[in-house]
């Protein structure tokens, strides 16, 4: 059992921040790793990126957008409530050594896991530029945190309510043209990461992505998270989650993420009906 020590609404109406007690996980976790949680006896196991690691405090931070049954249930949890299972740290840490000038590209609430990653790059001696995109200013999260660990921050919004008007790849291309980079790291929804990889490809800059595949165990046992990387099949859980974005079969990944769309909807609707939510 893992107590929720802190919970806040990060971005209305549905993105939440949680600080969870998990001393053993926090003692071992490194930037870029993830955990698998299960809320209760009948719950599913879902992978969540680490948005913060505090070994001294024995806590980890998680950011969750309530888009389905499990995340909806999580949104209903309060400070002091408990999460039944937290398994981790899983996956390999992000390689942060000798990265040179690094551009972090974060889309949506994918910005959150970039925070510990950027911090680790910075501590390893990299210069960090963060490029954050959102539809509008009110949807932007983790801006202060990213400023804390970045040498430069570029913000794009679709409506121009903050930073430059446009999408994240516009700012990314501009930055690559004007200043260049040794490494680009992208975290976010698969279509966003795919777009980032297409944007960086002409520049020939190494582009690392953190893949969010469907998983059960997270230990290499089920093979559900398999993804084509170049001409090889890899498991996102034990071979990743970080991969060379220019080698990822994005369409294959995006297709596999849709495997349970119908069931996810069924489960969410049934749950909302039970709880009189619309």
């Amino acid at each position, binding site marked *: 059992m893992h107590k929720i020590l802190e919970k806040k609404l990060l971005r209305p109406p549905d993105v939440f921040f949680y600080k969870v007690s998990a001393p*053993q*996980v926090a003692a*071992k976790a490194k930037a870029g790793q993830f955990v698998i949680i*299960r809320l209760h006896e*009948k*719950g*599913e*196991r879902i992978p969540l990126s680490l948005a913060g690691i505090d070994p001294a405090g024995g806590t980890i931070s998680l950011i969750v957008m309530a888009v389905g*049954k*499990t995340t909806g249930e999580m949104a209903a949890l309060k400070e002091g409530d408990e999460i*039944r*299972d*937290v*398994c*981790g*740290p*899983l996956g390999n840490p992000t390689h942060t050594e000798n990265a040179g000038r690094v551009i972090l590209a974060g889309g949506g609430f994918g910005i959150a896991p970039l925070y510990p990653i950027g911090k680790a790059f910075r501590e390893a001696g990299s210069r960090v530029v963060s490029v954050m995109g959102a539809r509008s200013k009110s949807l932007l999260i983790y801006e202060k945190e990213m400023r804390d660990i970045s040498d430069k921050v570029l913000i794009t919004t679709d409506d121009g309510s903050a930073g430059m008007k446009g999408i994240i790849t516009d700012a990314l291309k501009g930055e690559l043209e004007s200043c260049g980079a040794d490494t680009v790291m992208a975290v976010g929804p698969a279509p966003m990461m795919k777009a980032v990889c297409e944007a960086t490809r002409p520049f020939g800059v190494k582009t690392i992505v953190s893949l969010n595949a469907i998983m*059960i*165990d*997270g*230990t*290499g*046992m*089920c*093979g*559900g998270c*398999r*993804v*084509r990387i170049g001409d090889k*099949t890899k498991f996102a859980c*034990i071979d990743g989650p970080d991969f060379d974005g220019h080698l990822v*079969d994005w369409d*294959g990944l995006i*297709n*596999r993420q*849709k*495997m*349970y769309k119908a*069931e*996810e909807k*069924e*489960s969410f609707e*049934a749950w909302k009906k039970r709880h009189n939510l619309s």
Partner: protein
Amino acid sequence: MAEEKKPKKLNPKRTAVQEQDPALRRRNFEEVSLGYSAEEAVLEASRCLGCRNKPCVAGCPVSVPIPEFIAAMVSGDFAEAYRIIRSANVLPAVCGRVCPQENQCEGACTLGKKHEPVAIGRLERFCADWRMKNGARAVPEPAAPTGMKVAVVGSGPSGITCAYDLARLGHKVTMLEALHEPGGVLFYGIPEFRLPKKIVTAEIDTLRQMGVQIMTNAVAGKIITLEEIMGRFDACFIGVGAGLPRFMGIPGEDLNGVYSANEFLTRTNLMRGYLFPEYDTPIRTGKRVAVIGGGNVAMDSARTAMRLGADEVTLVYRRSEAELPARAEEVHHGKEEGLRFEMCTLPTKIIGEDGWVKAIECVRMELCEMDQSGRRRPNPMAGSEFEIPVDTVIMAIGTGANPLLTGTATGLVLNRGYIQADPETGKTSIPGVYAGGDIVTGAATVISAMGAGRKAARAIHEYLSSMKR
């Protein structure tokens, strides 16, 4: 003077066991075999010849004193029969259900030369179930604490056996399990209809009552390295199994609707996907399912797909039915439940439409000369290509060694990913580190893993005793 018993006429057939009607059970997850009644058990036990040379015992990987426990059953003393079995086998309720008896005890039974062998597995199961129903479960009194601490990594058959033996000897055992539920393959792999999970849970509870501490969600290699384990414990047993699923490497394996057997069974058993949406984890079968492979895992997957509501389930195996590695009883049960068998058939391609499986393309095989395994080598027949329309494909073609723990264990000598260990003691290249089960031998049986766990426990006990001196 004792009453002279007349020699009974030996029944050449084994006593039949009650089973769920195939037409019903193919759609439910209740256990297939209902087990013997006490009368049936005694009747079957009385078929044992009690032969002197005991070939059955030699055929058992953990040397259960079979004629002795059967003799106790004949005299109606089921408690004693259970005690005798348990002296050699920690998990009789499990082994009675899942051991490949036809290759072990029953395969060696003298009676089997002319008639049907004694149904040893069913008798073992009866005793274990009888014990569970009648009175408190036997929790052995551990020896006085030795002050020694042992880590057991993995809570499957080898780990359970090793932990049990070590705890009984007075050592303090901590068990690490990566999943949220202990039991390993007994929990996530073998389906409810063949091994009810309450049996596994009861065995795990016995360990807890003996003082074994079980840490779930503890992925060794991630939350703790082998080096750190050896810093905190006096010895370690590694029984992490061979959990990495293999795929065939044919086109289309990444389509939606293609599962590894591990994923398919884990979603169903561990996550209770068959109770979706009451339980949150979904599983998909569609109407037509092909299972690739011929072992117990393939049979379990195929029969699970049937129970999840598939109309047509086809087992696709590259050799002939005679070579099927699955337990004979499972093949028999599967046939009764309506599984289709496409033998001497090899999938060459999975055909998709809009990202989903639509069919598998196969080629017929002919069996040629014997290969190294003593089985006839299958070769594709030119021009025999054909398609099977399916919605779901389940790959049950074996597993490999998981690198999570071994990859971080410096100094641990491996052999193609598997741990190199002495087959008699489980001793590895690192002092105090022992290993057994599938992570040493590659995928094998529950009982052979238990045998390895027992041998390692003995060796660890000797090692710890020598340390003390």
